[in-house]
């Protein structure tokens, strides 16, 4: 395993309390409500450990108030940690002085916001170029880069409009363009698509996935929507009351929810579009014949392949084409409808 791009270590955040007074209580495991009642502090994050590999999309999911926004704002230090540290590319974010932090925000990590947070007095072009302007690039350089992104992100013809003239989806394209224009390694997206209509939201998810296939950024993506989490995430961390209650690949979470809370979340999910054949295949037996199905095909795709071939079973193959298992129609059906069971 290579070094993670973002490494969150033992992060705790208590709003409204000094570290010396509240940290001992947090370590003893004081409840959120008790801390609020007795000490008038809000426990927002408790002992978060999360390592995010470079070029991957880490989804953080949780209900409103679970601490998602607080967590993501620690990565570019819009919020100061009460305890713990964040290491980005080997460098401690809490250790940066004011100018190093500004340089980090200008060059390394940029952010997309739930409410878009565009500047109403600047045109689309000026909004997208904002990060570059802050960085002090000259006008021609900014113009070239901005034009590239306007084109890339589907905002042709809108360059000289003002944000309030655009629909929500278009506004968030501007938000995404503004974040990408500085060519950062890290993209922080706090419920970036939550405010959009379902159809537009899926469209934006597609744009993001398409861009990611080419750009390979390290992305932290916050959402409260499990469908979105499963579609986008390479890895999902589930946050509840400021703690990570489960972390793993999307199909692990669907197949083995850590507790009833998560089981409740995943019970209505279309499992055929999340789980891969490799996770539910049977050992290969002599004499099994059928079409070859790649181990990372989704169940739904495998079912279609079997139906088209008119076969009752298929051979599951590894990336190199070697057969590694077998899957029957029955197995597929069982896996697609199986009720998630709590615990391991």
């Amino acid at each position, binding site marked *: 395993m290579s070094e993670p791009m973002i490494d969150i270590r033992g992060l705790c955040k208590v709003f409204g309390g000094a570290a010396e007074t509240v940290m001992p209580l947090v370590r003893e495991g004081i409840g959120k409500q008790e801390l609020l009642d007795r000490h008038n502090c809000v426990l927002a994050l408790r002992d978060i450990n999360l390592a995010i590999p470079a070029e991957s999309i880490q989804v953080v999911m949780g209900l409103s108030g679970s601490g998602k926004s607080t967590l993501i704002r620690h990565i570019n230090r819009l919020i100061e940690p009460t305890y713990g540290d964040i290491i980005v590319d080997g460098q401690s974010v809490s250790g940066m002085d004011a100018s190093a932090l*500004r340089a980090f*925000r200008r060059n390394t990590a940029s*952010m997309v916001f739930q409410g878009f*947070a*565009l500047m109403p007095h600047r045109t689309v072009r000026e909004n997208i170029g904002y*990060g570059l302007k*802050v960085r002090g690039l000259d006008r021609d350089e900014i113009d070239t880069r901005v034009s590239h992104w306007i084109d890339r992100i589907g905002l042709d013809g809108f360059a000289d409009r*003002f944000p*309030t*003239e655009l629909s929500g989806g278009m506004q968030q394209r501007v938000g995404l363009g503004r974040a990408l224009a500085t060519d950062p390694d890290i993209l922080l997206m706090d419920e970036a698509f939550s405010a959009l209509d379902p159809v537009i939201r899926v469209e934006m998810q597609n744009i993001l996935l398409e861009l990611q296939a080419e750009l390979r950024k390290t992305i932290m993506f916050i959402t409260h929507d499990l469908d979105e989490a499963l579609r986008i995430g390479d890895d999902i961390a589930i946050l509840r009351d400021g703690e990570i209650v489960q972390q793993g690949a999307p199909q692990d979470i669907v197949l083995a929810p850590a507790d009833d809370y998560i089981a409740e979340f995943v019970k209505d999910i279309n499992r055929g579009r999340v789980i891969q054949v490799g996770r539910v295949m049977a050992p290969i037996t002599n004499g099994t014949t059928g079409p070859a199905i790649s181990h990372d095909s989704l169940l739904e795709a495998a079912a279609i392949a079997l139906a088209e071939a008119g076969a009752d079973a298929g051979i599951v193959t590894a990336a190199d084409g070697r057969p590694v298992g077998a899957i029957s129609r029955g197995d597929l059906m069982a896996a697609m409808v199986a009720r998630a069971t709590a615990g391991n």
Partner: protein
Amino acid sequence: MADTSWWVTFPQMERETLVGFRKALDGAYRDFSRSYGDAIEAFFEPLLFFLVWFERLLINAPWWAVLVVVCALVFLVGRSWKIVAGTAVAFLLIGYFGMWKDTMSTMSIITVCTLIAIALGVPIGIVMARSDRARTIVTPILDVMQTMPAFVYLIPVVMLLGIGKVPGVIAVVIYAIPPVIRLTNLGIRLVDRDVLEAADAFGASGWQRLVGVQIPLALPTIMAGINQTIMMALAMVVIASMIGVQGLGQPVLRSITNQYFTLGLLNGLAIVALAIVFDRVSQAYGRRMQLQYERISNV
């Protein structure tokens, strides 16, 4: 009997003590103005020079040239032909009734006072918006400045600098500056937190935040403050004529002492006309900016 008199009349300070107290304060202030008056006067010398130059410029320029320039400025700032037409009519009437010269004097002093009020008031408002401490200190001072009867400002200024244009300008600025300070502070404090957070997230420095986000977004509110400041300056100009400020206030003052009703009315109306022009222009400008930010799609 004598012992219970406090029940009927207020047990006030001994008359001699009070007189002594007033004498001491007045004397101290007089001493201060004697020793520093010249230095302070010298400090304001450039201001006086500019005031005289600007007033002469407006008075000596041909009336039609002034009219054209004023109308052009009104159009540039307000972008409305209706306001331009109103301005032209007002100025022509003023000239026709023989008040052109006094109006030019008043315009020059109002312009200078407004510029000074903006130059001082906007930075003070910014400091207030950035620090709650500064706000708690400045707010009560502004409250006092706004409720103190305007005549009271004239006394210390006259004691210090005598009678003339500069003390007039100082009194007008003190009287008129509170709105621009208050509304600059308010405008900056009302700027959307999310937008400011975005500026921070992209690594903006404090200065970039102020100049690139806070001031532009507060500008419509600041303009409302400037508008009020101009109105108050116009109101104060009449009072300032008591200490020798030239302009429309002088004839009004003369009318009061000599009971010239028509003269007073005409000059009063001229001040009203100026006020309306300044008000409409600065409001139109503020509205134009507001619209730009809240532009609603009608495509």
